[in-house]
């Protein structure tokens, strides 16, 4: 029974079905339980949290990643699966917090001051949640002071800064300088992304990494996470 639920959960992550009304890819699964319902069912059947996360959600996302790499899946598929996993994590979070099962880390993300573009930021947030990170989205046009305050209070492991415009990307450097001034720079890894920036720019302003897209962000964070472990 437990094995069936976990296998179905994994399959529904692969199908990118968040809930009952989603149809999936291979066949019309509309009306059958999706990731949200199956996660709840797993909890109701007393399946351990680490089994739900590792054998159901993470295992499913690994298959999705493989399918994306071989061009069987496209970004909308990847996002659908990540969104489904993110919804499952919302259910599991209070329980995970109360248990000894750790998430892969806390990640905050913001579009910097003066910039209101957020498509890329939102996709990064969805993918990282799907990859098992605890994500806090600070929104768009976020003042530097608010980011510094958040780092001080919430102590995230990573912070992602996004900017589309050449006129606003300079504010990423401002955030890094402000973190230094407040003695917080060594407490958090800073990742930058967006159409205006590059690897070279990340070096120039002293960021820890430049992420070309959301998938790259997952890889970069996983590398940091493994190095920490």
């Amino acid at each position, binding site marked *: 029974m437990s094995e069936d639920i976990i296998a179905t959960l994994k399959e529904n992550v692969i199908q*990118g079905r968040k809930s009952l009304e989603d149809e999936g*890819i291979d066949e019309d699964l509309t009306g059958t339980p999706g990731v949200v319902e199956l996660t709840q069912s797993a909890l109701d059947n007393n399946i351990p949290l680490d089994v739900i996360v590792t054998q159901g959600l993470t295992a499913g996302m690994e298959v999705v990643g493989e399918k994306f790499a071989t061009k069987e899946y496209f*970004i*909308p*598929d990847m996002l*659908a699966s990540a969104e489904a996993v993110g919804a499952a994590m919302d259910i599991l979070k209070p329980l995970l917090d109360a248990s000894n099962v750790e998430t892969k880390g806390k990640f905050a993300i913001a579009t910097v001051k003066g910039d209101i573009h957020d*498509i890329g930021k*939102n*996709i990064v*947030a969805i993918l990282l949640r799907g990859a098992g990170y605890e994500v806090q989205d600070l929104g768009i046009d976020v003042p530097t002071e608010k980011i510094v305050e958040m780092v001080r209070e919430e102590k995230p492991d990573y912070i992602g800064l996004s900017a589309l415009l050449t006129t606003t990307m300079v504010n990423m450097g401002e955030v890094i300088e402000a973190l230094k001034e407040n003695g917080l720079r060594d407490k958090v890894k800073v990742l930058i992304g967006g159409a205006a920036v590059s690897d070279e720019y990340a070096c120039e302003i002293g960021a820890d990494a430049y992420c070309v897209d959301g998938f790259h962000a997952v890889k970069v964070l996983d590398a940091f996470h493994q190095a920490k472990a």
Partner: protein
Amino acid sequence: MVREGILIDTPYERMTKEQVTRIHQASMEILSDPGLMCFNKEAAETFNSNGAEVATVSPSDLPCWHIKIPEKLVTDAIDSAPKTIKLGARNPDNTLIMKGDEPRVYFVSGSETNIWLDVDFPTYVKKSDPSIETRVPEFRPRRGTVADLCQSAHVCEHLDTLDAYIRTVNIQDKDITEDNKDVNKFFASLNNTTKHFMTGLTNLKQMDNVVNMAKLIVGGEEELHENPIISFITCLVKSPLQFVEDTTDTFIDVCRRGLPIVVSSSPQAGTTAPIKEVGIMAQINAEVLAGITLGQLVTKGTPVIYGSVPVRARMDTLGDSYGSIETSQYNIDCVQMARFYNIPNYSTSGVCDTKTPGQQASIERLLSDIVVTLSGPQYLHCAYGLLDCNSVFCLLQAVLDDAHFQMIKFFLRPPRIDETQIAEILKQIREVVTTPQKLYIRYIRPVMRSGEISAPYPFEGDGESDNVFALAYERMNELLAKPVEHIDPATTSKIFQEIPGLLPRLNVYEEGR
């Protein structure tokens, strides 16, 4: 089931109704004055016995008649010419139904070239930095062979957008003669594609053999008329306004047999036709109508297709310039004239001036492929793989062309806007604006899986690299590796027993093959 082609809802037309009528009238005037020179005795006699004014031209090196065709003869022929023509196929699912008043476009290969272009990808090393290597396509021309024709038909069988096959290469093997060329080109083509096969005939003496071959394949004479798996093209009228002796003989023979045939005319604006659009249009229309009239006089109701291959002359060489913009304009005008008569049309696009695949080839081909398709010809000889006007065929280019036609076909899909769609989309918008991310991405998937989103260019390289040729070459080899449905062993055996002149190496069931 028949092939769907692509239906053009609102065909693009260049001429107003008044201009179409005026071209028609001008063509009628041309047919009665100056009329045509005719180097074919039977045609002259046919016109004469049906009321045309026919006079012997003398002195002349060749027997020649001057023919003036009265308007009534032409309009009667237009009336009796079939308005719907069926082109059959070995696989009935590949049948084409062409209606003169329906702008449903079928994409077709051709024409016959002497040169086959091989491609290879040698590796070059950068002189200033030997650690850098690159693969560059190299194209090598050579004379076409019967094996090439088999390969071409094989690949064309697997090109999704290609609806029918006109042979692409002239077979010039040492053991191919004027007497055995026709039977071998017919068999090589028919045995490697299940799509409709159209071609010209080299030697009229071989007509019985090729028609008998087709009968053996479909099961008899009646079956061939029910499912005409072969059809013919003839340029019986050489521009300006001359019935040619041998091709007119072929034309008359095909019309007697009641098999489908294209009345094709290929004037060159500037040399064999006036340089102005109005001039080449009035003349080509007169030439095609003259052919259609002859066909209907030979056999009333025989299926004749309004064929147009007009081209503008190059100003530097006075050679053909199929890549010129005007060539597409003429073809679109011809489509409009054929539709005016409700007679199915064979039109031309995609023939380019350049000798090898590349940017010029793509630009010239795509422009004419798009605009001529939009005009709605029924049978578009869009020259898959053809280069250097009509001189070179490259299989790699044919594979590239298939990708272009995938795009054109996708572009021409009608929009889906109805109450159900509107209701669905309003619900979607209302849902998305309430979500934190405000993204529609989750709604892409069902649309993507249903084929409603166009596929990416199939030969796109990774990163910044341009690997179009290498990837198309891979695709070409994949298609060659796919099996084709050959003619069955028993029929093949019968064909080899009854049809003389076939090369034994074409028998795929022969031991050791």
